[in-house]
């Protein structure tokens, strides 16, 4: 474990990466704004020397983009990344060479990350040649052999003249690791280094990476969607959702006592090995939204189980969650009145209300008698004025006028989660971006079922 007093090695300050900034011809002709993908959005964190920093999140949340920003494969759209005190966006040629020597990356797919036309020796020696390390061919060859033996490819002579296609997945990933290590770097970004490997050889590669950390004095960034791996490897962990870091802190604290509702849901999604164990399933609804058009405020609020009701809400928090779910379905055109009527078997506003207020949740989180298609509105603690508004919208849906329904609901039931993007806040040992931790009073209000 790294000490808390270690020097920061990498400092990421407000970094964003937007893709597809340029408009197409049709967009330009129609005068449409460019709608970039916000792969990484205003992310800040620090990596201390000697740490293993884990970055976790589901697919498409921007983990890999963040990793590539760290090694300068991408230039950040906004913000700066400092490595050992120097801004890597503005390096002189000489500094850049030094940076390239000290920072390396291990890629996800060992079948892709080695040039199929280069032998193991040529691949591993290439960084030496580029960085002009070693005096003669023999010097370099000895260095390559040494590193290959370090990564467990012994005897090295047997591997030197092999092509990648002649090696197994584990051997290739070891070669890729050797290639990263051969220049004696300080900082390595590992982008899902074992996800393409067989389960049987994963542990071997991971242990090797841990041993090498001690031997070479490395700082790692470990990017993974595999939380058990993060738990096993990392000192500190950052959780990403839709380009945002929602929580970061020491791995044990983040895992054992997640503060952000998303972190909690993410850890609930890890399958339990023990079949007897009672599994706690994630309490979230819906899918990851489109990163081209992320939700306003907190990115997680449309899926969050702990979404905060506004001050003047008199019903329960659960009722509010269902209400904004209804609103969102109407606004995004996701609520199909015909389907709702068909399911209910009768023609009324109630059917739409029942459908719209239902949450698609695992059984343990749903109300008695609820399925994903319908819920009894009377079982929900809806304030009467809210119910009236919803009924009006439902009637308009029934009249086949979704625009009027959308107008009815637009601007109603606005949570702070929807309104404001949460700042990073210290909570205990870690920082998290959630409105729940803004003030103590809100915390009390937001606790599920505690108010009505």
């Amino acid at each position, binding site marked *: 474990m790294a000490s808390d007093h270690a020097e920061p090695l990498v400092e990421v300050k407000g970094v964003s990466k937007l893709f597809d900034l340029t408009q197409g011809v049709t967009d330009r002709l129609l005068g449409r704004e460019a709608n970039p993908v916000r792969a990484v959005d205003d992310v800040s964190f620090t990596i201390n020397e000697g740490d293993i920093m884990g970055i976790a999140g589901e697919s498409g949340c921007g983990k890999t983009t963040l990793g*590539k920003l760290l*090694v300068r*494969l991408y230039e950040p759209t906004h913000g700066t990344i400092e490595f050992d005190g120097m801004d890597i966006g503005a390096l002189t040629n000489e500094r*850049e*060479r030094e940076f*390239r*020597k000290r*920072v*390396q*990356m291990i*890629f*996800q*797919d060992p079948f*892709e*990350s*080695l*040039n*199929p*036309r280069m*032998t193991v020796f040529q691949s591993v020696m*290439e*960084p030496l040649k*580029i*960085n002009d390390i070693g005096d003669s*061919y*023999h010097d370099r060859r000895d260095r390559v052999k040494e590193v290959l033996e370090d990564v467990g490819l012994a005897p090295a002579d047997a591997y030197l*003249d092999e*092509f990648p*296609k002649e090696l197994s997945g584990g051997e290739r990933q070891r070669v*890729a690791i050797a*290639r990263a290590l051969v*220049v004696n770097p300080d900082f390595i970004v590992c982008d899902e280094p074992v996800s393409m490997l067989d389960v049987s050889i994963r542990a071997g590669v991971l242990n090797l990476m841990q041993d090498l950390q001690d031997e070479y004095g490395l700082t790692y960034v470990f990017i993974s969607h595999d939380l058990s791996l993060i738990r096993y490897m990392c000192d500190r962990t950052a959780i990403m959702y839709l380009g945002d870091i929602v929580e970061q802190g020491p791995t044990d604290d983040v895992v054992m006592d997640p503060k952000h509702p998303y972190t909690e849901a993410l850890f609930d999604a890890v399958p339990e090995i023990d079949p007897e164990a009672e599994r706690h399933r994630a309490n979230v609804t819906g899918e990851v939204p489109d990163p081209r058009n992320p939700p306003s405020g907190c990115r997680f609020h449309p899926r969050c189980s702990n979404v905060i009701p506004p001050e003047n809400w008199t019903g329960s928090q659960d009722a509010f969650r269902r209400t904004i779910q209804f609103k969102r379905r109407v606004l995004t055109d996701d609520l199909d009145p015909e389907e709702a009527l068909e399911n209910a078997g009768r023609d009324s506003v109630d059917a739409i209300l029942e459908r719209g207020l239902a949450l698609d949740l695992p059984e343990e989180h749903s109300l008695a008698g609820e399925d994903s298609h319908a819920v009894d509105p009377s079982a929900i603690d809806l304030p009467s004025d809210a119910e009236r508004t919803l009924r009006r919208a439902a009637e308009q849906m029934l009249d086949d006028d979704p625009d009027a329904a959308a107008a009815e609901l637009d601007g109603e039931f606005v949570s702070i989660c929807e309104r404001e993007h949460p700042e990073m806040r210290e909570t205990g040992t870690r920082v998290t971006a959630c409105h729940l931790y803004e003030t103590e009073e809100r915390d009390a209000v937001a606790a599920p079922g505690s108010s009505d």
Partner: protein
Amino acid sequence: MSTQSESGFELDTLRERWGPRIERFKRGWDRYTTHKMGVAGLAILVLFTLWALFPDVFAPHTPEWKAYIGYENTRMSPEEVNSLPHPPAFGDPFFAPLGTNASGQGIYSMLVYAAGSALYIGLAAGLLSSLVGVPLGLISGFYGDTWIDETIQRIVDVMYGLPFLPFLIVLVAIRGVNTTNIILGIAVTSWLNNCILIRGETLSLKERAYIESAQVAGASDTRIVFRHILPNVLPLAFVFLAQDAAAAILAQASLAYLGLADFTANSWGLMIQNVQAHNYIYNAPWWLIPPGLAITAIAAAFYFIGFSMEDVTNPQKE
């Protein structure tokens, strides 16, 4: 003493460095020879190369030789002239294994002596179009979607508008009828395919993780293009070189047939053109068929070699 051990050491280093490459070449050769097509192509090419290098060994006469009179500066009798073109003849009064043409030259000798110009045209046009098309394709692909790529591709688009034959007629009209112009004309129109296909391949290759891996290691653009991308497009480039060479030989033959080739040069295409010019297409098959077969054979040889090389150099196939 010391220098001796030093040089011995150097030699060891050299052996160590080149040993695996020689080994790999042997393996590649083994794989090449498993394809009969490739071996046949190579055999044809070797034969034509030998013809081109040592025509006097293979041909009984030189192109200056004439039936009945040999190398002497006399005239044939009217009966002798009437017997031309003469079908294959052995022994007295003259020896012409594939017969003669209308002016008494031996077809077989002409065929052997024309091999040089065919190979010259094929290889020169193929190499020239590869040398222009491949680097431009690499650059265009590597800087895909930038102004560099746009510029190159728009030039290619415009060049595609050039119709081959009218362009060549104009070129020949301006610069005169000679083989160099024909090679130039063929190269100018055939590098476009090279460029576009290599660009496409490069566009896909540059997204591979090993390119990013090289970038992280600090490799320059030049290094990435020539060390990482070029070796991966070379097999493809070779296939196109072979195809361009074959196409150039055929194009030269058709140009010769149209009378656009240098008529003082000796080429297979020109021989066919002469058959037509003298109106012997239906009457002198010994004159018409051999040059036609030679053109077919060398074009096929280039294709066969191209296909076999693709198999040898593609590490994904085994």
